[in-house]
């Protein structure tokens, strides 16, 4: 089977910072806004190079989202930066009315998503944001898996007209996708060919899915691995093509099973090709304090959990 080499652990938020820096140099319409989390969002370099195109809003996320909406009137492409929780749930109505319904070209860039924010605990670990954002008409929802992909996605969304939710995380994780890749919104990445089970994963779970596929391969199980970085619009064809071969599927995400990638996949399958599916996701719960690895273990969001789910779903065929 095809394997991927970890080029060295890096945080996805630094990929965002690097992408934003590049946009600062190449696209004069890109502006950035932050609600008092410059360091956490890795926006320092962009700010140093483009002080006039950066807006420090202070701890006022509602104001930030609507200022971003206003900046589009005049042709700017605003990138907002704060934690995923404060990028979505806290400001849902502002995004709904002033950005999504008003069809404003705002890029909502959300760091520290999911359990891997770690020790700060459940107040900061949102597991509902994909659901909130994918329900908004016209919103594109992207959850990137590593540093390189996050950098590429950040650059790509500037060229996309319309509101985008870009979700990434805090910890240093495996960086395994190609440097300077071309990121195509809505196009799933076929990572590993397999015949017995399909694993579709998003965000930090993609690397776990690759690790799971390696172990499954040693056990004689051939797993196909697909990275769904764009949850909306969903690449239904990639999923349907794969399950037509494997006849079963496991979805994996760092999000509640309600409202996440798994439900979007289940909808496609139930309409076009009903297929046994297992869900790697949190089970309608809040998170808690702990290290990222401890939390992913406790809530069943790692390679071991994916392996068990694959073995279970194969028996359901």
């Amino acid at each position, binding site marked *: 089977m095809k394997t991927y080499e970890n080029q060295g652990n890096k945080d996805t938020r630094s990929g965002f910072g690097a992408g934003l820096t590049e946009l600062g140099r190449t696209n004069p319409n890109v502006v950035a806004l932050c609600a008092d989390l410059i360091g956490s969002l890795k926006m320092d370099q962009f700010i140093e190079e483009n002080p006039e195109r950066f807006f420090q809003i202070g701890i006022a996320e509602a104001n930030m989202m*609507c*200022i971003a909406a206003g900046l589009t009137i005049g*042709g700017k492409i605003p990138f907002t930066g704060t934690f995923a929780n404060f990028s979505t749930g806290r400001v849902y109505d*502002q995004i*709904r009315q*002033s950005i999504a319904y*008003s069809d404003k070209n705002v890029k909502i860039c959300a760091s520290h998503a999911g359990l891997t924010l770690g020790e700060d605990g459940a107040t900061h670990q949102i597991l509902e944001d994909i659901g909130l954002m994918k329900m908004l008409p016209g919103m594109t929802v992207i959850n990137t898996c590593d540093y390189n992909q996050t950098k590429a996605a950040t650059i790509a969304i500037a060229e996309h007209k319309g509101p985008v939710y870009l979700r990434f995380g805090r910890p240093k994780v495996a960086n395994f996708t190609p440097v300077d890749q071309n990121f195509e919104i809505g196009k799933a990445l076929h990572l590993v060919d397999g015949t017995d089970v399909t694993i579709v994963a998003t965000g930090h779970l993609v690397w776990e899915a690759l690790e799971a596929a390696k172990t499954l391969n040693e056990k004689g199980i051939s797993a196909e691995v697909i990275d769904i970085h764009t949850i909306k619009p969903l690449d239904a064809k990639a999923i349907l093509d794969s399950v037509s071969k494997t006849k079963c599927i496991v979805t994996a995400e760092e999000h509640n099973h309600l409202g996440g990638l798994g439900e979007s996949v289940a909808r496609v399958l139930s309409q076009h090709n009903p297929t046994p599916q297992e869900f790697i996701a949190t089970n309608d719960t809040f998170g808690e304090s702990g290290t990222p690895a401890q939390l992913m273990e406790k809530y069943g969001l790692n390679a071991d959990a994916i392996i068990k789910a694959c073995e279970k779903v194969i028996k359901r065929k």
Partner: protein
Amino acid sequence: MANTQQLEDITTQVRRDILRMVHKVNSGHPGGSLGCAEFFVSLYNEIMDRKEGFDMDGIGEDLFFLSNGHISPVYYSVLARSGYFPVEELNTFRLLNTRLQGHPTTHEGLPGVRIASGSLGQGMSVALGAAQAKKLNGCNHLIYSLHGDGELQEGQNWEAIMYAAGKNVDNIIATIDLNGQQIDGSTDTVLPMGSIKDKFEAFGWTVLEIEEGNNIEAILKGMAEAKSLTGKGKPVCVLLKTVMGNGIDFMMHTHAWHGKAPNDEQLAIGLAQNPETLGDY
């Protein structure tokens, strides 16, 4: 440049439009719309420097943002009578498939509208974003916005008010419709807000009061002064004291017509008090 009588005539026609729009669909918000009729007419005919036609970016012209979107009837009437879309379209207000939704939106592509509003408290932040885009674009035109006084109970306004002064956004004139009424009663009974003037000043704004907010000459004079105060490092707030329901005697000085349409008989009385000037749609 229109004279005051011409603006009065437009205002009378706008009042008729408002009454007929809300009466036809038996819904909508006539009270605040009528209270701001003189302001809108003055703004679109005299105060703002506007380009012909409409494009979303609005570079090279003054822009207006309505934050209290429920007074859409006056907004739509004045936009139509300022040439943004045919006045006949006022006939479609709140009907299925209309561009004239209950609350203003860009979703159906209505010329003149740049942001959806209705869920309150968001418009000042949007206006500030647009003001900062103007600065980035080197465009010296101004941003005008309108907000309800009851709307200031929404906390986001105070984030925006703090930001505007802190960041020296001095190319905005935010007007507060100070009619003292909201849906459930007077602002003083619902949630007393104290002195709005003191609050804006404490946050670092330049504040101007227009005592007769339904007097076109007073509006033109006050807004000209407000304009002269822009570009001096501070955002400018105009407190526009209006009478809700102005121009229809039985609708004045009460919150009762905030969100209620007149019946056939009440419509006839209201229209009789405001004879046709420019022609009904």
